[in-house]
């Protein structure tokens, strides 16, 4: 159901962006990268935020199932982070003539956020599975989420910005049709991320259970005849 909703919303968003939304007066057709770049970036933030929420739940309750959920959310957030950087670079090249601008605080902060969460995997796999790894990963995921509001505010605090500000205190600085298209694209990306999160989490859980089953079968062969007798 979620996968179908994601497919419908993404395709609808694509159609609206390419066929219905008007072209920007300054940037022309390349402005339509906005409908994929911004929703992907916001979805990456949502993934990292979800990971932090699950990490908090793990630290709060001690329930180890949140560890896998937090890890999967970081995984999805990182994938969308890569897409944000790539689509952003393409947009930068066509708009500013450069692939990257180190003077832009929001770009650099997003890169830091992305690298921070990329290092999460290094931390996770440098520790043996168990409560220590779960707690360390959770604390790390929680620290990273602090960078999200900083990254968001950076563009508003920047003095010499060339990165466009579309959402201000006065509301979205675009036409109604552009805003409607953006909302559909954002809903599509969030649904897509949620569907991928669910599939990835199910795969990881099955993987974990298969590992457990393999260990059980390898270490307890003597019990099997007893089980056969009880059943018969």
């Amino acid at each position, binding site marked *: 159901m979620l996968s179908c909703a994601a497919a419908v919303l993404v395709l609808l968003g*694509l159609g609206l962006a390419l066929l219905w939304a008007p072209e920007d007066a300054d*940037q*022309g*057709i*390349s402005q*339509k*990268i906005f409908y*994929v*770049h911004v929703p*992907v970036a916001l979805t990456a933030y949502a993934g990292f935020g979800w990971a932090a929420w699950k990490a908090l739940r793990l630290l709060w309750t001690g329930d180890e199932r949140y560890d896998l959920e937090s890890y999967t959310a970081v995984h999805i957030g990182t*994938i969308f982070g*890569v*897409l944000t950087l*790539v*689509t952003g670079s*393409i*947009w930068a*090249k*066509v708009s500013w003539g450069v692939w990257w601008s180190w003077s832009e605080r929001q770009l650099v902060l997003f890169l830091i956020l992305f690298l921070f969460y990329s290092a999460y995997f290094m931390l996770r796999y440098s520790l043996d599975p168990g409560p220590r790894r779960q707690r360390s990963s959770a604390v790390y995921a929680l620290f990273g989420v602090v960078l999200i509001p900083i990254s968001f505010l950076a563009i508003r605090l920047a003095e010499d910005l060339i990165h466009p500000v579309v959402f201000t205190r006065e509301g979205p600085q675009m036409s109604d049709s552009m805003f409607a298209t953006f909302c559909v694209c954002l809903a599509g990306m969030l649904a*897509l991320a949620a569907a*991928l999160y669910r*599939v*990835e989490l199910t*795969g990881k859980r*099955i*993987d974990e259970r*298969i590992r457990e*089953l*393999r260990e059980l*079968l390898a270490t307890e*062969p003597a019990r*099997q*005849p007893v*089980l*056969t007798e009880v059943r018969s």
Partner: protein
Amino acid sequence: MSTGEKYLAAAYLVVFGAVLLYLVIISLKVTRLERDLAELTELARRQRAPGG
């Protein structure tokens, strides 16, 4: 095709290409899980068989 259109197509293709790649990875993973499960089922059958 104008330069703007080329870059626009590139940006959209990157995202949809990534989704497609992810689907390929997931399908490979499902195949591996299926193989592991078949292997474990076979192992369990052998252990339950007389003299196994």
